[in-house]
């Protein structure tokens, strides 16, 4: 594989990672990961319930656009 092909592949991988990052942020997966890091707990139904309690009010107050 030449240098140009490697660069192109790198760009594609970076774009896909960004897309994945955006989707994880939109779908609150990143927020949950940050919650686990902050609380120093592994993922579990109890941890997710605690996360939902914390972000529930914030989420419910977010207006959805027209």
């Amino acid at each position, binding site marked *: 594989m030449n240098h140009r092909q490697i660069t192109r592949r790198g760009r594609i991988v970076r774009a896909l990672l960004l897309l994945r990052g955006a989707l994880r942020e*939109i779908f609150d997966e990143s927020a949950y990961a940050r919650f686990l890091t902050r609380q120093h707990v592994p993922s579990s139904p109890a941890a997710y319930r605690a996360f939902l309690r914390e972000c529930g009010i914030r989420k419910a107050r977010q207006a959805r656009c027209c």
Partner: protein
Amino acid sequence: MWVVIAGLGALATATIALRRGELINAMWLVVAALASFALGYRFYGSFVAAKVLALDPSRATPAERLDNGRDFVPTNKWVVFGHHFAAIAGPGPLVGPVLAAQFGYLPGTLWILAGAVFGGCVQDFVILLFSVRRDGKSMTEMAREEIGRLGGFVAYIAVISIIVILLGATALIVVNALKSSPWGTFTIAMTVPIALLMGFYLRRLRPGKVLESSAVGFVLVMLAILAGKWVSQDPTFARYFTFAAPTLAMLIIIYGFAASAMPVWLLLAPRDYLSTFVKLGTIALLVIGILAVRPVLQMPALTRFVDGTGPVFAGSVFPFAFITIACGAISGFHSLISSGTTPKLIRRETETRLVGYGAMMAEATVAIMATIAACVLQPGTYFAINSPAGVVGQTAEAAASTIRNWGFPVTSAEMQSLAHAVGEQTLFNRTGGAPAFAVGMAHIFSRSLGGDAVMAIWYHFAIMFEALFILTILDAGTRVGRFMLQDALGHIWRPLGRTSWYPSILSTSAMIVAAWGYFLWQGVKDPLGGINSLWPLFGIANQLLATVALCVATTIIIKMGKAKYAAVTLVPLAWLVSVTFTAAWHKVLDPNPRIGFLAHARQLAARAAANSMPGLSRLILNDRLDAMVTGALVGLVALIVVESVLVWGRVLSGRNRVEVREAPFVASRFAAEEQA
């Protein structure tokens, strides 16, 4: 390269503006849009960023200074872009351009291009930046601080009014899309248990795996669409899912109340995820479909209805095309998102241009795609779907004959055949924009994927997408309205302000649902189809909120000592004031009963005096209420405009000490890291 882009844009815009009497390809619209937005972003956006806002890459944003891993999180700019776009993209840019297509493709397209570049993108961008410089403060807080207490109060009233009117108008779109449609109703009904299942999956089986559960939910929704065909063809099952408009309206009102009072994780959150998943996927599909098919527009550039006699909604091209397009060009609602979650995620000030200006450009591109979806239909078909029975006639023959007399060929047999192809009993009088958009989308998709054989599947996919989208806005909007009401009522009696106290939850939910439910009910009972009254009312409310946002932005720009650049927000502000105030004047006082609420009330009153018909007094009351709501909104916004002008005068004359309420400067470590 920019010279080539400018040349292409000029050629495409000239083609769509000057061609008369011959059909043009939709790609001209796409090229004009992409070139205009690219030029707008590169040159106008840069000018606003550099000269007006003076973006400072060395200044720490609240995401950096207040980083708590929860609300304030420095995030990659493309991730914030996606997050912001997902939050601002709603049904408005899909429905508005479809309705405005009654004037032809030209007025709507030109307004989307110019309105987005000089109005909508600028509004979103400057409000986002000003919120970033104020620790992520909301638009209403900035209005109170920068303009005065009245500004904050007016912004609050405008926000809650727009929420109520928006929910009433969009609920009517769902009712009109699902009435007498067992296939569509079954599919949408199934999204409720699917969302509940997703909630269970997330909480019990795979905690936090939202993308995974959304994908599972999407597969189940697709299965529900396929099963819907079977349900609609089975006489026994079809009966259970065939509802008239009033029954559907009641069901939606009950749903709105229940969803608002339920725990967030149970229904709202999973539905929101599912809706976002479908939304992003469908918008991408629509763009790909249009680029692949490159359809020819059947609608002329301008129709005879620019004079205000249109059947879809009454009113001339100025001002009604502008308030009808609404979110596709500029949306006051975006200022709430730009001063909500997004400013708390921005990593560098310089990234606000991509997120604020850029995401609105993406939204305007969606609006162009919706214009194309509506205009690929034969005009006769478009008007047959979008015209209410009160205008074109009660029977299929009468409607087709009326539309033919306008110069748009269509027959009842053609409409019957189209209805059969998309799995519906009839497509006449399906007002609201959603069915026309769904037929247009199915038309485009069926030419790129699967042919006519799957047109019904695509149609019901589009209906499901819009209805799911709108129902998510209904439950989220009801909840947001409930919180706002609880916050306000908490000042009167503290327990009412407790968001977890059930008597407060139930009573405030009931108040909000009753408010938008009333608008929905009046729309369902309106002989002119409801959209004729409600969508302009929504458009006026939305653009008035944009007026408030631009007042805040202009005030801050003048206070920053940049008065010589104030035209950047002052020109769109002046345009919006002229559009919304003219539209409001027409909607309240126009002597034509199809336009003016009061003239319509007088006409009904005369009819009631001549022969006592049941239900007329309710219709008269509705007209007077709509007139009062419109007048009150315009009056309040006029107050904020006057107060803003007084503030500008005091600042410019040096009578007031200028106070820019920005957070103090702190150097960004990201800038230092980059330099190192």
